[in-house]
């Protein structure tokens, strides 16, 4: 529940989204408190990525409300929506780096447009962000010259460029080796502890989610099946949750 001393950064009410006859989300309610990290779990194709895109206005819901830091975004025009977007960092599932720009220019891209930093300061900031994800040595490379996992790390650096209050991460650890995945998990925890960033992380990495999230959310067929801590998840009687945990080796 929302408390006055800890307001919710992300609130959705009765959110619904369909593509043709396929219902992706239906009656979806979510509250993420400021500074909280929530992991969203579920099978592929259950609307997790769509949820993130709805939260940043890349797609419009069929019904329901979305509030980001108390502001309703479903009815906003492009300009005020862009002001909200500046407060939100977004990591795409495949990184979505601009392939005509170098790694460093990718991170500088939002800085160049939304800050008054000098070219030198932008460069330093980009290098600092790349260092935090272990990619500073590859700053001059093009995205096509680095691996998928590296692209994802650069994507995280780009998502953090504007010091966002909220970060939305779509499978940040998928396709990474266990060591890098753990490092990314630590980075997410670090963000939460140091900057009090609110994070919503879509993931299949149950172990990672256990480490970096305060709360877990399990989606199935467009609805929230489970909401709570990791210990509660393990004691859930829901057959889908039991099967999910068993198949993930945590049952």
């Amino acid at each position, binding site marked *: 529940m929302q408390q006055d001393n800890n307001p919710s950064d992300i609130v959705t009410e009765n959110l619904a989204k369909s593509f043709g006859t396929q219902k992706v989300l239906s009656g979806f309610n979510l509250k993420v408190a400021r500074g909280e990290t929530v992991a969203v779990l579920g099978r592929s194709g259950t609307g997790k990525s769509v949820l993130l*895109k709805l939260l*940043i206005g*890349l797609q419009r819901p069929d019904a329901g409300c979305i509030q980001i830091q108390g502001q309703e975004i479903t009815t906003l025009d*492009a300009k005020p929506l*862009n*002001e909200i*977007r*500046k407060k*939100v960092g*977004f990591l*795409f*599932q*495949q990184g*979505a*780096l*601009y*392939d*005509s720009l170098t790694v460093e220019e990718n991170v500088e*891209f*939002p800085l160049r*447009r*939304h800050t008054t930093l000098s070219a030198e300061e932008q460069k330093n900031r980009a290098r600092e962000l790349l260092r935090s994800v272990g990619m500073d040595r590859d700053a001059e490379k093009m995205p096509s010259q680095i691996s998928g996992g590296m692209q994802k790390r650069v994507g995280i650096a*780009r998502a953090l460029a504007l010091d966002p209050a909220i970060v939305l991460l779509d499978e940040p650890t998928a396709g990474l080796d266990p060591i890098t995945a753990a490092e990314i998990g630590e980075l997410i925890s670090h963000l939460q502890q140091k900057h009090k960033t609110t994070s919503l992380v879509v993931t299949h990495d149950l172990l990672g989610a256990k480490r970096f999230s305060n709360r877990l959310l399990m989606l199935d067929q467009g609805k929230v099946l489970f909401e709570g801590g990791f210990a509660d998840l393990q004691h859930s009687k829901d057959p889908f949750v039991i099967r999910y945990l068993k198949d993930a080796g945590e049952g």
Partner: protein
Amino acid sequence: MPIYASLALVIASVFAAGREIYPQQLGVVESTIRSGVTGVFAWFGELALFCWRLARVAFAPPWEGAELIRQMDSIGSKSLPLVALAGAATGIVLSLQTRDTLTQFGARSMLPAVIVFSIVKESGPVITGLIVSGRVGAGIGAEIGSMKVTEQIDAMEASAVDPYKYLVATRVLACIAMLPLLTLAADFCGIFMGWVSNTLVQPISLRLFFETGTKGMEFSDFLPPTFKTTVYGLIIGIIACFQGMRTEGGTEGVGKSTTSAVVLSSLFLILADVVLVRLIQVFYP
């Protein structure tokens, strides 16, 4: 008119009879025609919305000057060799083919004028437009299309940067600005190589060739045909970006966008040429 009425009656009768004999097959034909017609109207509707959205952002700050210059280089400078070559080839062909015809009519002295007028008024602009539509239309369609399917356009929007301003407006403006300049290059190369081709058979100084060729030519013969290519640039830029932005379905979709960007921009360019030539005749008789 009675012919058309009879034809319509015959087609309606064939459909009516076909409906009785082959109801399923005719249903497929009907639905294909219906979806085809709907698709054309939907395409024009989407294009109008696209242009409206583009017009709203193109002339409002912040300006994407660096990207505009980058695109002008990519569309202009890098198309120059191809356009110059095509212009030169046109000049040579015109010289080779019209020489004999003009000689037959005893009008060989008119050769420089025929080459200069036909290149400046029509061949230069159209050849430039078609070459740019092939090279740049394909490039823009493929680039924006692949950015769309790899979520780079979404990433741009998520970074609070309008892709219509950053990607589309810069490319369309660069096409509009570069087409007349490329046309001038094609005209120059065409006339020059027309002279080279001519002078190999019948030596004539370049100055005399040019003076004879441009004798009687007014600014109204030169400026409107050159500046009509801004419309070609607008068509190439808009169609290529539009096809790129509506790409769906992975790499196969990118391929389709690229092809349709070239085919549609070339087609609309030729259709626009018909209208523009008529308009120029009306306003500069």
